[in-house]
């Protein structure tokens, strides 16, 4: 069975590293994997998305329409924007920390209210202020790793493999902080 994952967030949130880490775990689990990184402007606060497909044999790196099993929403508005990529049975793992986009900053539009509630009407959702939780552990940079933990819990890849993938992909001084964040996400039910 192919597992399709979509990651959505804001430029600068570390989407590429998160994608790489998940791909690495798949390779370690002896599965085929293909991913898309951002192909546009990556670092300048625009919307960004990536996708990962994991399974016995993957042809296209693109997740088909409404074909995602899991959506990692690194930011609520981006979670809302990419909800349409989910299957009806899809699950959302969301960082609730808000990054206002330009129309909101310029007071032309309101930031949508209660995104978590809206998504919960249609999908199973696990949400956490991962930026704040990361801050507590020592850096907001580990925020995405909480969501990777939640994802890992829902996938058929051994926890140790994920730990190894983290160790191989994040800077040395952030390894223990990331493992901690991963475990918190993994054990959240």
């Amino acid at each position, binding site marked *: 069975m192919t597992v399709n994952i979509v990651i959505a967030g804001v430029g600068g949130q570390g989407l590429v590293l998160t994608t790489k880490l998940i791909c690495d775990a798949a390779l370690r689990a002896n599965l085929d*994997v293909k*991913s898309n990184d951002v192909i546009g402007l990556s670092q300048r606060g625009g919307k960004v998305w990536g996708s990962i497909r994991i399974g016995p044999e993957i042809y296209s*790196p693109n997740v088909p329409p409404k074909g995602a099993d899991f959506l990692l929403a690194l930011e609520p508005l981006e979670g809302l*924007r990419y909800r349409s990529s989910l299957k009806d049975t899809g699950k959302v793992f969301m960082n609730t920390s808000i990054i206002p986009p330009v129309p909101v900053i*310029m007071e032309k539009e309101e930031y949508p209210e209660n995104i978590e509630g809206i998504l919960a009407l249609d999908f199973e959702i696990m949400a956490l202020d991962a930026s704040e939780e990361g801050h507590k552990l020592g850096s907001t940079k580990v925020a995405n790793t909480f969501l990777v933990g939640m994802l890992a819990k829902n996938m058929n890849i051994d926890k140790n493999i994920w730990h190894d993938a983290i160790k191989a992909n994040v800077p040395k001084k952030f390894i223990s902080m990331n493992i901690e964040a991963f475990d918190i996400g993994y054990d959240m039910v």
Partner: protein
Amino acid sequence: MEHLSSKGDVVMDNKTIMSGNQAVGRGFYEAGGRVASSYPGSPTVGILQSIKDNYKDIYSEFSVNEKVALEVGIGASFAGARVLVSMKHVGMNIAADPLMTFTQTKINGGFVLTTGDDPGMSSSQNEQDNRILGKFAHMAVLDPGNSQESLDYTKLAFDLSEKYIMPTMIRITSRVCHSRSIVELSDRVEKEVSGFPNKPEDFAMIPPNTLKKQFTMADRIDKLTVAANDMDINIYEPSPAMRTDVLVVTSGLMYYNYKELGLDYSVFKLGMVYPLPIKKLHQLAKKYKRIIVIEEMMPFIENELKMHGVHCEGKNFFSITGELNTEDIELGLVNAKILKEHTYPIEKPEETVARLPMFCSGCPHRPVFDILKKAKADVIGDIGCYSLAFLDPLNAVNSIISMGASIGIMKGMSKALKSAEKSKPLACVVGDGTFFHSGMTGMLNMLHQMDESENMTVLILNNGTTAMTGGQATSTTKSYSDAGDVDANIPELLHSMGFDRIKTVDQFDYKNAKKVIDEELKHDGFSIVMTTRPCALNFKIKETPFYVDQNICIGCRSCVKTNCPPILMKEYDGHDKLKSSINKDSCVGCSVCAQVCPVGAIKRIEEEA
């Protein structure tokens, strides 16, 4: 077996995960490559970057522009080394001059040109299909569809280049460049550098030497057309159900996107999209009722087939623009009446608040465009991060064409307006990377028939960085850090060209910068302003963040209008009106907002006590 590569990427049983870009770099390394050159541009910037990061034995450089990169490659090939030159699709336009003549030579060391097409234009100003330029230059064009193919085709391209004595093109697309998949690694094969054979008849390209070469080039394409029939990368997959109604002809990622549909038609997957295996396709065409070509952008394969009398269909059913994802291919097959119905759900994009990119926190472009907007200047834009100034809420540039073009465009506009007695003040903005790439010539050209009564202002936004592509060095980087190795002085350079009104300003000294820029915009004549603050991404600002004193803030939004990520209007207890706020986690302390605040409400956090 698990070990780590030099960059820390995991390698298991000789397998690792690479992007298409990294895989091209790896292929070059394994092929015994010696010299690699490029100019940074999306989607291919990662090729040379990964060579720089991983393979220290290879000489690599980000050249000043693509034309120079290609020329460096030509020299290395002449000397007998295997060479990789990489660039984004539009880079080939400027490199086309040396390429079109180089392709006539005897090349010597294997020469591979990798060009990144951008179907859908996720990071480009146009969508040109470079397969046509490959054909134009009498080159074989290979089209990889995943990372393993990117690696393998790169190696093959060197063999083809040396066997058929021609530069060879790898045409890769944004999606393949940035998609990761598993690749199997091999060892590097060392290739000797044979030295430059002193044979002007093969390398000095003027008549009569070039006369014979026209036939040589035609001949190599003829030979390749024959060889293509037996190439391993051109693969015929007969229908498992023995169907003879449809033969799908496709290449690259389109093959994999098509395969997702799980259909049982026969498929011909082209690894080489120019020249085509015409004989084989002719023979196959006789067996099938319909030939359907699936390709992104222009009908290149389709037209080649038609030109050779193979009846086929393609762009009647598939879009001429954008990416063709699996669902688009299915829809095309429905339109072609090959499939009965579209089975993929229609994914309706969620209609919610848009999120377009904006200048980073502490970006040195912010105060410049705030000043230009307030001055209501007519600003011609150029290629770089500052092109984002055309977006809301800045709306501060009126046109964008190609690298360095703003300078020539401003001159032409000024001359035309003057001829109709409609002169008005004009300005253009150009970054340092863009200035060195293609702006210097436009500057010198300004001096020809210079009319001192025409009000033109060139703003050179020197941030010491090729920022848009991820922070590669430019020819001024060394004046900011040790990362660069060239310390060109732009004002001195312009001065020696013959310009004398050149002002240099620190745009984080907002008041003075505004005074100088306003003066120069008003100056009746030609003037140049260079700003000096470096890129905030590459040269991180780590100053104490600012906060808004809610009791002083009058809610005027002067700070908000600079459009900085941490600044947002919010409600404060005890105040009816919204007041500004600053998110201290994303504020880097550049101080621009504090300087535009008319009442001094924005202060550094340490001043709070």
